[in-house]
């Protein structure tokens, strides 16, 4: 589903290039649950953004479902955002002036789904996430865990094939974090491909595979149950 070939990402300042990612090769198959780990500043978010087509690699090739992303126009990338990719963020990034309901509804609106259908879909997911009572509240009226639930609901409402999560539990208590991770695992079991960035070995264990990134280089890429050689 995802194929990264020799991806570089660097920032060009006046005198020098700073590499954030260097020669990253990676294949991710449909249905995988990958955890990207590594120290702060290693380039994890950058990699996730490139996979999510929010950022462009400086060099290399990227194929998403066999389509060359590096050749796509912005408009086509938007089509992928609408139909195939959902995002979850550490800081939730809910739209503050929209209600819970409206936040969750947003991707459906951009996808062009009819109002009636939207209502049914949002009602379903609110029900599933136990948030029916909160639907008319604004984000700042919710706890962090609840906000992240809304974030996930919004990310998955359009039923994306790929879910990208950048430290989804980073701002949460461990209890809330566990709940979120369980939810992600459930979604993965239903067939959704998930890539998460995490600092926690425990959270990484929810996935099927761990990629360790250091200074923009892939140091290790192993299944969850294999023994890590680099983890301290």
């Amino acid at each position, binding site marked *: 589903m995802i194929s990264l070939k020799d991806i570089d990402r660097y920032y060009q300042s006046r005198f020098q290039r700073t590499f954030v990612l260097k020669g990253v090769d990676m294949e991710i198959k449909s249905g995988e649950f990958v955890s990207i780990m590594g120290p702060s500043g290693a380039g994890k978010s950058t990699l996730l*953004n490139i996979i*999510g087509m*929010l*950022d462009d690699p400086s060099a290399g090739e990227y194929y998403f479902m066999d389509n060359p992303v590096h050749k796509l126009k*912005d*408009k086509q990338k*938007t089509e992928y*955002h*609408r*139909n195939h*990719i959902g*995002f979850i*963020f550490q800081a939730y*990034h*809910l*739209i*503050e*002036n*929209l209600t819970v309901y*409206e936040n969750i509804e*947003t*991707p459906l*609106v*951009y*996808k062009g789904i009819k109002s009636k259908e939207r209502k049914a879909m949002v009602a379903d997911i609110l029900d599933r996430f136990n948030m029916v009572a909160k639907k008319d509240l604004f984000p700042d009226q919710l706890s962090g865990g609840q906000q992240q639930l809304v974030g996930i609901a*919004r990310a998955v409402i*359009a039923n994306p094939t790929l879910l990208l999560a950048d430290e989804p539990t980073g701002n949460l208590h461990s209890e809330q974090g566990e709940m979120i991770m369980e939810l992600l695992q459930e979604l993965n079991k239903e067939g959704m491909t998930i890539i998460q960035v995490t600092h926690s070995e425990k959270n990484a264990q929810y996935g099927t595979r761990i990629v360790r990134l250091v200074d923009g280089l892939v140091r290790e890429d192993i299944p969850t149950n294999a023994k890590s050689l680099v983890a301290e």
Partner: protein
Amino acid sequence: MNYIKIATRRLFKKGEHSATRIISLAAGLAFGILLLAEVLYYHSFDSFYPDADRLFVVHENFKMDKSSDKLSSYASTSGAIGPGLKAEVPGVEMATRITHMGTSVFYTEDQKKYKAQFILADEFFFDVMPRSMVEGNAKEILKSPMNCMISTKIASEIGGGVVGKVIELKEYPGKKLTIAGVFEELPENTNYEYDVVVPLISIGKFMWDGSDNWLGNDRYYTCVKLGKGIKPESLAPAVRKMQEKHQDIVKLEEKHGGMVLKYTFKPILKMHSDNLQDIILILSSIAIAVLIVSLMNYILLTLSVLISRAKSSAVHKTCGAQPRNIQQMIFSETAVLFALSLVGALLIVLAVKPLAENELGHSLGAVLNPIVIIPIVGIVIFIMALISYLPARFFSKIPVVSAFRQYKQKKNKWKLALLSFQFAGAAFILTTLVIVTLQYDNLKNSPHGYNTEGVYFGSTSGMSGSKIGTVLHQLRSMPEVEKVGLGACLPIYGASGNNVLSPDKEKELFNVADFYSADENYLSILGVSVQRGEMFSEKAAVRGDVIISQKGAEMLKINNGWTEGVVGKDVTITEHGNTTIRGVYSDFIVGSKANPDSRPSVFFYRPEAAFIKAAQKNSAYSFKIMVKVHSTAQTGVMKKIEKVFNSALPYNDAVIKSLSLEQGKRYTKQRGFRNAMVAGNIVILLITIIGLLGYATNEAIRRKKELAIRQINGAKFSDILRIFLMDLELVAIPAIIVGLVGAWFTVDKWMENFASKIPLHWGIFLGCSLFILVLVAVASTINFTRNANQNPVDALRTE
């Protein structure tokens, strides 16, 4: 998505500066649009006539001889010119001539009193400048003597059923006019106002009939309609031919070497605006300054707000929004704010309506015509598009990744650039205002060369000649009254002209402002005294003797070689014949300083008894009674004088005026204009302050963390504030200089219209700059301090 609903929700959110943005934009729009509408209104004059673009007013361009180097041009011609042009010049489709009878009080048969502007017009008047008729047939009425048409306004004042009623003008007792028709009242935006039209064929009943003269008696406003596509300049040869045929112009030119007399055509649509170029210049500059300043302020505040929302734009994108969707979202937010600002602007205009109408001298309703509305709507739409489009575009361009990486404008240069527009605007308008005000006060308050203090006057119009003596006596026996004099004209209202002839009476030497008759008291009240020769008196002068102003004396000396002086010499002046010069007085301001009449002036002697005799002989003859009161007189004295006048007026309709107040009124145009500037200045300064406050707040918040770290590292808050202010003032200084240069050019151009100008002292410019600089410093210090001066630890924690 329901963008409008969400946009409305944003309105009430904190940190959106919604109220500030709306208020400053509303104030700017209200004022900018009001001024622009005023300027456009000037251009809309007479546009309501059908085919207005084909209507031209005939101008007479005249130069006496070689000695005068400038052609003077007047919008009036002799009576035969109009019909002559139509008959002799192909391309002139229609022509009409009209002339003023003046604003006059008239009476109906039931002794009720009304006031109206009367004109005399030939039968083609309504063909060229049509009005729709409510009653009667215009063509027929204009052909029948002593009939008249009145406007719907006058008709409704009189009450229904006016046709057939007989009216009588106060100035022309016994000359009865029958109302035969009613026409639709003229809109306010016309150059030639009238309420009552009297057929020109009746002119002989009221005054000397020169309606078919080819030369002289050039009192007619002549308006022609040209054929489609005819350029007025192309008619010159045919006009010249007409002059050769009827005026014998070739012979005239031979006789008076260097004489020029020609006729030109001025588009009726330009008649008004051409006279107001100076005001149009300043008003439109201010309007544009106000609009730009308020727009820049709006964009500044909006962009500041949008930056804090960059993240939400990125979130929308991850949800599948295209740049177009984001633009729509921002666009609708702006649209809601703009709509509210427009409503606000409308409310402001309504609130200041009485004030504005008073200052502008016309109703705001009169502005609602296509020439004004269409450009204004265009401008509003343009502004709306601009302020909606720019932020929307800017916002949708923020890249997603950088938005997520704590997107904060690293640079604030663009904010300073936007602010600099406001500084430039504020400096421009403040400086212009100060100079215009100084110039206005200079005009009004500096001496005019004659006395106005304690002087009141009224007309004998409508007074029976036999009662004037009693009135004078009663006035003189009032304890408050110092002196009473009689005269025909007043310096403030200007004077008509006559020509001074050469001793052989062959040549007209120069034109004089003719004040006609005055007695010695009249001149003494005005403080006009002779420097050479002797003032009029029963002993030293006879009726018809003349005194002439210094300028006229000089011209006589040069033209006639009278090196020993002019006193005692005989001159011939048209309309007056041969007369002896008794004295020479200093020139005073004829008309107003804003629009001075630079001709020399003359007064002819007429003793009091002669005035009274003339009035007894001819009931239409009237003059002014001028009363000088003691400086101790109370304000009620005007009422007392009025009572005395009324005792001799059958309808008790005396109007007594104060000379100094009337003189002040000559400057209403300048005053209204100055007040428009004061209002503009307040609006711009307010908007600038609002912009600065917003900027200082945003900067303080944006740099909170940086400031906290600096403070922790030992910087004093005052140091930080100083750096902040320095940055700001460094932008302000060049902007202010730009504003000053703009003001200098504008004012310099405007002052071209005045004979007496105040010097453009550098102190004015320096003072205004300092004022703005201090304002900038104070306003921004207050808000910067309020928002930034907090515990650095708190600042870091909330980050």
